[in-house]
């Protein structure tokens, strides 16, 4: 019966006859859907971004901890780890953060060794001398230098260091290189005043993915002050983190949904005298309660679907075109430095299914009883008014 075109036409014209009321309802409903949808779309996009970033990450990263805090790791540890069977290359990495008071943002400074394979260069070449550097697209935008220009940074003893830009990055994933400044390792050690026998952490290449956890265990056993982190664990953690964050936001916004549902309930219950007359006439014409009920429920379904499509479009525009200005600061968390990076435009079926379940089902459930009440009214009573 739902597919009957004539009945559908009747429902549509019935909705149109009360357009002020219904359009207002659809607008509010669509805004609620857009809010919840933005949360889902944004977290999914960020998750995808994080996963693409991590596929290039090394199998294991080894850090050293002292007093529960991250410490510099002796380069000699690399030799110990390289001795384990099944381990490929072990590379000490030198990197650190640099706060620039001019543009009020943190930059990530890394030594070129150990990063080579992961990044694809957009233009230019890698640094070959101590005073050369390669920068991320975000840095280039913030400072304004192009290839061949100078980048001026202050080192740990507040001395001025100048680096000539020899290339600008654009990696597959923006999150990875946006705030990056790549220097030669010796130049970076000098800049951070870091002794030559220490490194920030070690990356470990493991040939067989099934051996990763065994090797991580071995590292923790032979080097008790070290903290091996596998790529899988990073993925789990990011996944859980984003799920938790979006779930949290969703739980908060569900209160808005509740408020809307109360409104919808109220709207559906308080039918106008004109509407009552209409139902009365229909019944006098021979419609049964079930027919009127069907018409009412079809109206609710039409409103739901319209609002869902409109809301989803709004969410898509908000997240992917405008860059989610309203939610980004709450959800992103780790990089407040360059808030304008393009999100990967992905919408998958699962997010839509969840959004539909959270918004359409409650609305339909909450219009059922009012619809029945309206449909079961007595034609005689109604017509006499």
């Amino acid at each position, binding site marked *: 019966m739902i597919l009957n075109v004539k009945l559908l036409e009747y429902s549509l014209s019935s909705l149109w006859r009360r357009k002020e009321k219904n359009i207002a309802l659809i607008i509010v409903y669509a805004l609620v859907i857009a809010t919840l949808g933005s*949360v*889902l779309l944004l*977290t999914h996009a960020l998750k995808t971004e994080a996963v693409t970033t991590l596929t290039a990450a090394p199998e294991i990263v080894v850090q050293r*901890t002292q007093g*529960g805090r991250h410490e510099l790791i002796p380069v000699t540890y690399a030799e110990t780890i390289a001795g384990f069977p099944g381990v490929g290359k072990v590379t000490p990495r030198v990197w650190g953060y640099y706060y620039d008071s001019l543009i009020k943002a943190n930059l990530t400074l890394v030594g070129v060794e150990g990063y080579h394979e992961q990044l694809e260069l957009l233009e230019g070449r890698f640094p070959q001398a101590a005073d050369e550097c390669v920068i991320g697209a975000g840095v280039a935008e913030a400072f304004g230098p192009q290839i061949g220009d100078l980048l001026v940074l202050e080192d740990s003893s507040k001395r001025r260091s100048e680096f000539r830009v020899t290339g600008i990055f654009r990696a597959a994933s923006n999150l990875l290189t946006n705030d990056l400044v790549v220097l030669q390792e010796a130049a970076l050690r000098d800049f951070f005043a870091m002794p030559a026998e220490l490194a920030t952490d070690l990356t470990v290449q493991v040939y067989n993915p099934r051996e990763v*956890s*065994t090797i*991580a*265990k071995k590292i*923790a056993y032979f080097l008790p002050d070290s*903290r*091996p*982190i*596998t790529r*899988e*664990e*990073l*993925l*789990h*953690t990011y*996944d*859980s983190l984003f*799920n*938790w964050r*979006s*779930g*949290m936001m*969703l*739980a908060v916004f*569900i209160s808005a949904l509740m408020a809307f549902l109360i409104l919808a309930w109220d709207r559906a219950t308080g039918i106008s005298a004109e509407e009552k007359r209409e139902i009365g006439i229909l019944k006098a014409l021979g419609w049964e*309660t*079930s027919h009127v*009920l069907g018409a009412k*429920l079809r109206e609710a379904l039409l409103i739901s679907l319209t609002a869902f499509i409109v809301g989803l479009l709004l969410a898509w525009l908000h997240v992917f075109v405008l860059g989610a200005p309203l939610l980004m600061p709450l959800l992103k968390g780790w990089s407040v430095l360059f808030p304008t990076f393009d999100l990967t435009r992905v919408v*998958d*079926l*699962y*997010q839509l*299914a*969840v959004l539909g*379940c*959270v918004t359409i*089902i*409650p609305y*339909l*459930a909450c219009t*059922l*009883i009012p619809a*029945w009440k309206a*449909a*079961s009214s007595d034609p005689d009573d109604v017509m006499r008014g």
Partner: protein
Amino acid sequence: MILHPGILALLLGSILILLLLLVAGGVALRILRHWNADSGSATQLQLERQTWLVSTLLKYAFGFQIVTLFLFLFTLDEIHPLFVGAMCATGSLNANLVGWLVLLVKIGLVFAAAFWLAVNYLDQRTEDTPLVRIKYVTLLLLIPLVALDLWLQWEYFSGLRPQMITSCCGSLFSAEGEGVISTLAGLPVEQAMPLFFAVVLLYAVLLLASLRWRAMLLRTLLFVASVLLFFVSLAALVSFLSLYIYQMPSHQCPFDMLQGHYYYIGYPIYLGLFMATLFAMLPGLCRPLATTLSLDEELKSSEPVWLRLALFGLILFLVTSCWQMVFGPLILLGY
């Protein structure tokens, strides 16, 4: 783990279904107490109107139940990367064994609700609605099942412990590698294949015979055959049909086929199986209820429709599940 968007949606959905059924249950109690089909009083008139409310509530609850069943499977697949060693939805279920119970209860609920709606449909088409008492008593029995579903879901999701990096070290000391079984081992192919096709054949013969003759015995046998078909088909899906669908001799998962990279082929497969089972069970189930003449008349006109729907379901199921077996490049049994 509760604060995952999909899990929130599932719990919300189950709470709403329970609420709908509680409202329906309240009305059902009133109907059971005051129902008197011979009376023309105002109360009786009001009660008759309320039966529409109950059937609408149930229809929606049933629809929501199907949606949440699929969302549940979808969510299982979505969260599997959080567990060490889990490769698909099966891994998520193994991460907390209550999950299997949830799945069982959800499937049971879908069948129970479908039966209820079928009986309700028959009953509402007659003038004298003779099945009112049976209907509303069984409705009251559905409520604890829905509550159980909600509670089990809560137990399952709150019992999940995803592996995360802790502040002192990685998680690897808590998880013992791939200790969790991530695939279901099915029956051996050589036995499963003849069994599956024998049951399909038996079912098809009984179905066609039921379409031709109206004997009660045939309906009873068809009822048994369709229950058999349901379980044997599930076993066959795990045992060998999935191998053909994925074209991999080691991938035995009944859930992966619902995913996009297998072109959602699982949906027509399960829909077909569900239709074949449900509509073939209905005649056998409804016949004993048809004690009055009016019901018998209704049943006479509904039965052929149901049986044809069952036949359509069987064809849909066989075509979608066995397509790869016949036309795909994978050869499982040597010759």
